[in-house]
């Protein structure tokens, strides 16, 4: 609830719109509440007019008696008779006037309400996105893309609905309820007392209904997603299912799940089919009571026809807000939970952020040093790097070798300060990376990942990703150097070919070359890359190899090495074993002195994967890049992104 209150404060940013919406609300409810009043006037004018007509037309003796019974004098009777039509037409026109006012202001209310709610959603989404974009890697390690997506979509939607419209509705319901009850009371106290007991009953039913159905709906959702999981698995794994001839088992599994879902749905409908008719029945019984007891009063002469109809109309106004309030209250708890989840993200501390007083990193020469660096992903967890120290001189190539989980990617993640070391420090040209502004640091480090995410936009946009102001000549030059120019020109739209989610699908090798071009364009002094190219054929692999070696020339480069050539040419090889530098040196040194190196060299590098037939496809060959330490990383994220578009072949 506290979070909801905090969300409601966002209304303050749209004060004028909000005020207009609420003002319109009051006017439109007011106009609505006038209508029964006017209906009463019309009906009473009619009955009085007709009565007066008949009385005045009657013989004189009877006329006096009747007038006495009615409590009228002759003048009044005449007035009633002659003025009836005028009165009724003027009241009718007034109804029209109020109807138009009601329409206009109701429109204003819901339009402005939508404006407010959309604006609030806009604010929330912007804040969430900005926060998410800046949250450190460790935060993203702990949170899945899908989860964060839901915060920015479903949760924002729920909060928007409640704050933007739910509150308006609540106000409307309360005003309508209070005034209608007041009018009932003013019209006829006795009648009011008769129908009073029905009201809390209806309210309780609505509330209880919300409470009861919410968990049932949740169960439906769970069962539906279970069913969809089976469907999804069978679609994605169709080949396995067919190969092992497991269709009958899977069908039985699906049928059972579908049956389960159906029963749950039917259970929900059972509640619906009971509650709604009962609530309507309650409303109707209230009306029936009005007909009977009101009718009794008409017969007794204590109620006019007009009052009777007015009462019936106001009673209808009472039931409507009751139902609405019941629904809104059940929505409120949902909105509160959503608001909490939203603020959890907005309040999440960013553990890698610029220090106060951080300065810009001056143009880098390229000396990178690790000084007794110990690092674990989750503060207290098992260290993935222990006392790692080394120095890379400007222009040197450092090859990182080691088994999965040995800490290779942790080292490359610490250089652009994607994480902070737990102990020790990482310096560039002697300056601790934590003392400089992130932007100036990362702007001078180029990264080529094995698994490249392309962003919506053109190929040119993607190559210019790190330098959006680059000229087309620069982009083309970079693409040429990365052996990408040729295939780019093969597209009809060339550099303007749209890629990403909704654009042309590029093969793994093509993406990789775009990534290389992207890094080349940045012209960084420090380069981080993964030289593995497992998802492409031999030709492409060769081309990529050439492009990579061009890229590395003259830059301090850190390479997660897969290739003999890389290792051979490296100025420094770091052999990592469970977070420690087990051996370091050049290829020749290590071949002589390190048995671990010799083993890795033989087992991992010699039998390098030949070009294979795997279709160049994003889901394939996703080797962890940032995450060889078993953390969820980029590879996982992009894999899940690609999953939605996974193909079978």
């Amino acid at each position: 609830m506290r979070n909801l209150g905090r969300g409601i404060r966002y209304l303050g940013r749209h004060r004028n719109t909000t005020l207009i919406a609420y003002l319109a609300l009051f006017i439109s409810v007011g106009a609505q509440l006038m209508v029964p009043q006017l209906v009463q006037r019309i009906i009473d004018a009619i009955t009085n007019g007709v009565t007066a007509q008949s009385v005045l037309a009657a013989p004189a003796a009877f006329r006096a008696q009747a007038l006495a019974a009615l409590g009228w004098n002759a003048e009044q009777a005449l007035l009633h008779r002659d003025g009836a039509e005028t009165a009724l037409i003027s009241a009718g026109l007034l109804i029209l006037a109020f109807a138009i006012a009601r329409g206009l202001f109701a429109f204003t209310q819901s339009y402005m309400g939508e404006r407010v709610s959309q604006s609030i959603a806009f604010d929330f989404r912007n804040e969430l996105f900005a926060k998410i974009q800046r949250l450190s890697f460790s935060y993203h390690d702990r949170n899945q893309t899908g989860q964060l997506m839901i915060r920015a979509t479903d949760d924002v939607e729920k909060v928007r609905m409640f704050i933007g419209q739910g509150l308006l509705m609540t106000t409307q319901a309360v005003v309508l309820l209070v005034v209608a009850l007041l009018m009932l009371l003013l019209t006829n106290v006795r009648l009011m007392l008769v129908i009073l007991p029905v009201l809390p009953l209806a309210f309780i039913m609505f509330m209880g209904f919300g409470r009861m159905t919410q968990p049932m709906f949740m169960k439906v959702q769970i069962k539906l997603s279970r069913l969809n999981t089976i469907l999804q698995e069978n679609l994605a794994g169709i080949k396995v299912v067919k190969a092992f001839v497991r269709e009958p088992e899977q069908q039985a599994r699906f049928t059972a799940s579908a049956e389960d879902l159906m029963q749950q749905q039917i259970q929900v409908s059972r509640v619906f089919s009971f509650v709604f008719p009962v609530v309507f029945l309650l409303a109707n019984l209230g009306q029936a009571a009005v007909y009977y007891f009101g009718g009794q009063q008409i017969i007794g002469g204590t109620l006019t026809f007009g009052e009777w109809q007015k009462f019936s109309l106001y009673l209808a106004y009472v039931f409507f807000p009751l139902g609405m309030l019941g629904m809104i209250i059940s929505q409120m708890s949902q909105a509160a939970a959503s608001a909490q989840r939203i603020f959890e993200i907005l309040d999440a501390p960013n553990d890698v952020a610029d220090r106060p007083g951080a300065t810009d990193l001056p143009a880098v020469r390229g000396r990178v040093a690790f000084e007794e660096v110990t690092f674990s992903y989750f503060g207290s967890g098992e260290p993935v790097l222990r006392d790692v120290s080394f120095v890379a001189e400007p222009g040197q190539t450092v090859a990182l070798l080691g088994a999965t989980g040995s800490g290779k990617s942790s080292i490359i993640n610490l250089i652009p300060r994607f994480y902070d070391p737990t102990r020790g420090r990482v310096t560039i040209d002697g300056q601790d990376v934590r003392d400089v502004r992130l932007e100036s640091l990362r702007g001078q480090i180029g990264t080529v990942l094995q698994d490249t995410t392309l962003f919506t936009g053109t190929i040119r946009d993607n190559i210019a990703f790190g330098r959006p102001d680059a000229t087309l000549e620069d982009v083309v030059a970079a693409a040429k150097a990365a052996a990408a120019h040729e295939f780019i020109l093969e597209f009809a739209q060339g550099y303007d070919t749209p890629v990403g989610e909704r654009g042309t699908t590029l093969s793994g090798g093509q993406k990789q070359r775009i990534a290389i071009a992207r890094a080349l364009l940045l012209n960084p002094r420090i380069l981080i890359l993964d030289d593995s190219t497992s998802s492409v054929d031999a030709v492409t692999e060769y081309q990529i190899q050439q492009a990579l070696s061009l890229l590395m020339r003259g830059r301090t480069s850190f390479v997660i090495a897969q290739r003999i050539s890389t290792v051979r040419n490296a100025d420094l090889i770091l052999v990592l074993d469970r977070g420690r530098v087990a051996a370091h040196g050049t290829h020749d040194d290590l071949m002589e002195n390190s048995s671990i190196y010799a083993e890795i060299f033989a087992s991992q590098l010699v039998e390098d994967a030949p070009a294979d037939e795997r279709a160049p496809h994003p889901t394939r060959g996703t080797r962890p890049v940032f995450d060889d330490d078993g953390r969820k990383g980029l590879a996982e994220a992009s894999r899940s992104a690609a999953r939605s578009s996974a193909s079978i072949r």
Partner: protein
Amino acid sequence: MHGMGGPRHILAQETSKPTEVRATLGRLARQFGPFWPALLVVLGLVLGSTYVQVLTPELIGQSVDCYLTPAAMSRFASGAAASLAPAAGQPQGMTGRSAADSSCWFSSSAFGGGALPATASTSDFVAGLGRLVLLLIVLYILGSAMNGLVFYLMAWAGQHVLRDLRVKVFRHLHRLSLSYYAENEAGAVMSRITNDMDTIQQAISFVLVNVASGVLLIIWIAATMLRMNTAYALISMSVVPLMIVTTAWFSGQARRAFRRTRVAIGAVNADLQEGIAGVREVQAFGREGANIENFRQANAANRDANIRAVSFTAALAPSLEALGYLAIAITTIMGGVLLLRGQALFGTAVSLGLVITFLQYVQRFNMPIQQISVMWTNLQSAVAGAERIFGLLDTQPSVQDRPDAQAMPPIVGRVEFDRVYAAYKQEERVLCDVSFVAEPGQTVAIVGPTGAGKTTIINLIPRFYDVVAGAVRIDSLDVRDVTAADLRRQIGIVLQDTFLFSDTVLNNIRFGRPEATDEEVRAAARLAHADEFIQRLPDGYNTMLGERGSGLSQGQRQLVAIARAALANPSILILDEATSSVDTRTERQIQRALDALLEDRTSFVIAHRLSTIRNADQVLVLVDGEIVERGRHDELLARRGAYHELYMKQFRREEGSPAQPGGDGREPAALPLPVAQHARS
């Protein structure tokens, strides 16, 4: 009741127009076949409840004309009743119905028919009113019960239909051949099915009944009003066409506007997805600021599109409401004028009760009209969805058992490709005149560049696809002459893209042979060298795996897949070697597991490891769908042909310059590898 923005939510749905409405609706209706008794009951109940809705306003009118008006009149007329006889020219309106009028239901028995005589006492009026209200209450209860039952029965039948349809679709998906999945992405198929099912569900459980009973109610009320008083009815209902036109116009506008919002929100979600999934690259390239600004723009466009769209829906309800009030005003004014002037206008007379009845009737038009307009959209997308679902059900699998297909006898393991041609689509040629024989127990390695047709060869053995020409024979039996299930049961497959289910490790291995005991599962795991790591999992064999086996490393997933195949104990093994690198130890385990699995079985391996190729009894070198060379590794290498070239390029690339393209006469350089082309260029 629809709370916040119910209609706009529905209007915001995908609305693609169905093309064959009648055929699709008919077919959808046939799905309800087994539930016709329920539907019949629903029909009866809808008629009943509509009748109640038409009847109740009439009864209220009666209460006015039969008891309230006479009673009110009698108060001032008491003692002078005689003089207030109808002969006195009293307007009929206030006396209500004449004595001869039998429409006062509760007076006839007690007072010999017709309205209560003017001499009736107050208590007589109250008693009559009481009886009438009692009937009203009974009708209300009946109506509610009928409504509840209709809702429940429709939901019940609808859910059953939906379940049957789901199961039907699921079974059909299993029947469809892999060629279908090659053309249709799994994700797209998935989302289409779920979305379509969703719209169908909404339509068949609520919309259909609502639209049907709404239309029925409108017609019935209109007919009743016309019967009661034609002229007055025509005047009172004059607003209704206006309501319909307004609704149709606004809904159409809103639909179009909401279509634009879908595009806008799609862009927002795409940005979100990209920004979150690619956050590491964004930060690596320092693009946070630019990204946030981009997102802001998409987000603003979405906001504006929504605000624009909502201006139509926000106008619809108030407009209809205003029209509703207009109808009320017209009805009361005209009723009043008619009452006051007697027969003077239009030669017709009305009673106060009739005015009140009509007042209730005109208010009842509002709701169904609004509902129908909203539901119409919904219905339209449901029919479109049903059309797609039926289209899917009508898709014939390209690989089907022949009617006379026989069971596959236990396989010995001789596999023969006899001049096989294969193609996924009409015009393309994937395999061309491929012939080879694998003797029982042999290992056949298939090598070649991307797109050469290696996968196609292994897809033909379990008959995932059919050949275009030629034949694939196992133990001399054409695979098209045996039942696919029998055939596949004896063939084991390990794909490089390991697919595991979100189930326990145990069940994932058992997938290979569901009837296997736990001990057999363990034995298979041990054979696959998977036992060791499985034991170390939090719940051992009962550890639940996430979607697609998440929770295990890639190497571990491969080991589980190998255990799965081992458990199936197939006679023929097909293996697509994984190329993705795992750490050295796992790599060796996988290698050993595979060796154990390959032993004594006819095996086909899409080879990525030199060791596999070296150990193979036969290496097939595939280029552009043709076998260009075959033999053992050493022979092929010695031949210095295509294989040699491939070897030089791919396995010893680092060693130096590529060798000269070979020409040994048999497979001349006329069929060069793409690699060779590149090397020469």
